[in-house]
């Protein structure tokens, strides 16, 4: 005799169904009907079991569902690198079945974040190869940094750059595409493939046409897989694109299941849902594998307003934010990040002394130039000192501009920034830097006398030392630029 637990559909509303029966069912168990449609048990109330359907299809009252031996989980392993899967581990990249074996671990999606005894101070910088980030808004390995901005402000391109620049850094990248269109998921895969990033990247995607519960699970799967690699001592980057869609999907599910709506009709536990996810990131001790999970949740703003409910929630549960503006993007800034409104809370502690000192000076200069810019609007003729500061700002902005799909070595970033503070640029303008940025970069990597400075950067103790060294080679710089 075969014996299984069963339940019968007593109520159904789209992807949400209520079943009776199942005497010993638990939350996160998977149930299945005779057509193979799977459901995820989300709550147990008295005599009813609430189930969210993970597969599409018609459900009728009275239909029989059987309990399966599986829990809500995803198979984890190295075989996922270079693949695109849905949140339940089904490949969606057309490359055939996953090369998993019978011994492949299936990890449960719902995990509690590791406690304080398994965590350590964030000490290593997460290098992005982007001058603006690495110098002015540094990220640490294990940091949670919100990427917030308008539509068409270059967020996705920035994230792709970030993944491309992790080549040879030993970082595993996990891109969670939440509720995007099928076309954009395909485009993303094509870009990643074209830039040869798939050997250390995986994509978890649920498109807008998938059932809402499946879209909701996307970031959970991303973190579960990130934890798998982190526990092997690896450094992982998780990109959640985007949590605004995730919040909307959760709102849809909650309203359907009669949870009382709160602000902007989001359920009361939306903060918990996002905080519960993001606290799974961090820098971990050796007793938990020793790796790190750096999380970059993304949120798209409507009408440039970042004071709405979900963006402010996310700001409060992350260690800073990078604010992208479409106005800056239209002015040609790449990445279009507003430096004065962006924050990084733990990244600065991971920078070396020289970078830290230099970035402080540059931020001071930029804010001073902003003030002078406002005043200069009222005056026809500006004193030479003011003109110099304004010109320095323009040259700096040129240095901070990032060419797509390029990675600037950390020493070159520092040299170019220090050059903006040196007397070398006193008679130069923005156009000079625009024209000669690459020449200077190459010069510091190839010219025998300039290479010495590049090599000595890590041993320097202050920014003044570096500036002095650069002023000493001004004739050579002028020569290579001419």
């Amino acid at each position, binding site marked *: *005799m*075969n*014996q299984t637990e069963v339940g019968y559909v007593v109520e159904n509303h789209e992807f949400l169904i209520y079943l009776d029966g199942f005497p010993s069912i638990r939350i996160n168990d998977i149930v299945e009907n005779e057509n193979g449609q799977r459901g995820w048990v989300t709550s147990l109330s008295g005599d009813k079991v609430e189930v969210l359907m993970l597969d599409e299809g018609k459900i009728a009252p009275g239909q*029989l569902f059987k309990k399966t031996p599986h829990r809500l989980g995803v198979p984890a392993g190295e075989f996922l690198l270079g693949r695109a899967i849905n949140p339940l581990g089904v490949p969606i990249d057309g490359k055939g079945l996953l090369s998993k074996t019978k011994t492949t671990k299936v990890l449960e999606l719902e995990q509690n974040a590791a406690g304080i005894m398994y965590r350590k101070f964030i000490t290593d910088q997460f290098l992005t190869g982007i001058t603006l980030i690495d110098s002015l808004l540094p990220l640490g390995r294990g940091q949670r940094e919100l990427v917030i901005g308008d539509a068409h402000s270059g967020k996705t391109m920035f994230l792709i750059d970030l993944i491309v620049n992790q080549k040879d850094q030993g970082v595993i990248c996990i891109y969670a595409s939440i509720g995007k269109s099928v076309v954009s998921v395909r485009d993303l895969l094509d870009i990643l493939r074209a830039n040869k990033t798939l050997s250390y990247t995986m994509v978890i995607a649920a498109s807008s046409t998938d059932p809402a519960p499946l879209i909701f699970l996307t970031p959970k799967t991303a973190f579960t897989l990130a934890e798998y690699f982190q526990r092997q001592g690896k450094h992982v980057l998780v990109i959640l694109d985007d949590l605004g869609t995730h919040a909307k999907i959760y709102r849809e599910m909650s309203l359907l299941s009669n949870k009382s709506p709160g602000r902007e009709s989001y359920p009361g536990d939306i903060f918990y849902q996002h905080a519960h996810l993001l606290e799974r990131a961090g820098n971990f001790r050796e007793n938990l594998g020793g790796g790190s999970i750096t999380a970059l949740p993304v949120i798209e703003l409507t009408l440039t307003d970042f004071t709405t409910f979900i963006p402010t929630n996310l700001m409060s549960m992350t260690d800073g934010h990078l604010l992208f503006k479409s106005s800056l993007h239209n002015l040609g800034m790449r990445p279009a990040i507003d430096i004065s409104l962006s924050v990084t809370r733990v990244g600065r502690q991971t920078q070396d002394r020289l970078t830290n000192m230099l970035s402080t000076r540059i931020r001071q200069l930029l804010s001073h130039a902003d003030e002078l810019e406002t005043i200069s609007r009222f005056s026809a003729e500006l004193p030479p000192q003011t003109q110099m500061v304004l010109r320095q700002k323009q040259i700096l902005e040129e240095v901070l501009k990032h060419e797509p799909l390029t990675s600037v070595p950390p020493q070159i970033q520092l040299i170019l920034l220090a050059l903006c503070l040196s007397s070398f640029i006193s008679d130069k303008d923005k156009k000079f830097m625009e024209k000669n940025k690459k020449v200077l970069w190459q010069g510091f990597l190839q010219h025998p006398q300039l290479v010495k400075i590049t090599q000595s950067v890590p041993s320097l103790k202050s920014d003044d030392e570096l500036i002095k060294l650069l002023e000493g080679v001004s004739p050579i710089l002028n020569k290579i630029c001419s």
Partner: protein
Amino acid sequence: MSETILNTILKDTYTLTLLKHRLRVLKNYLLNQLFTASKVSLNPEDLTWLNSLGPAFYQQFNKDNVEEIFSRLEAEIKKEQLLYLYLPFVAGNQVVSQIGGQIRHIFEKVVLFEIRFDPSLIAGCAISWKGVYRDYSLRAKIDQRKGEILQSFKKFLR
């Protein structure tokens, strides 16, 4: 009072479908008798069943309590635990009565059941009671001894 009425109805009513049908027929018949007194056309089976209830049964209903009694009966039915019986053939009325009698004998109480047709069982039956599905069919036996059966078939392969 509604409990006595339900027990009388359940005396020879075994399935939930039949119970719901009979309640609807009885309600229509009573409303008609109490409020309009016109003739109702009923099928012979329903008429026989209504006649079998006897005059004492009908005396319990009047114009004031008929609606209330039926809403109570409906509420009580909702509370009833249902036994699902899966059969590989379509069961006729006689078979249903036989099964119903046997179930009441085994459980020693009134148990409502529903019959569901499942040809994949091949032979035997499966039951589902309080959320537990027990498969006593030939399909389950074959599943259990799949290896043995395949081995036996291999003997005949050339």
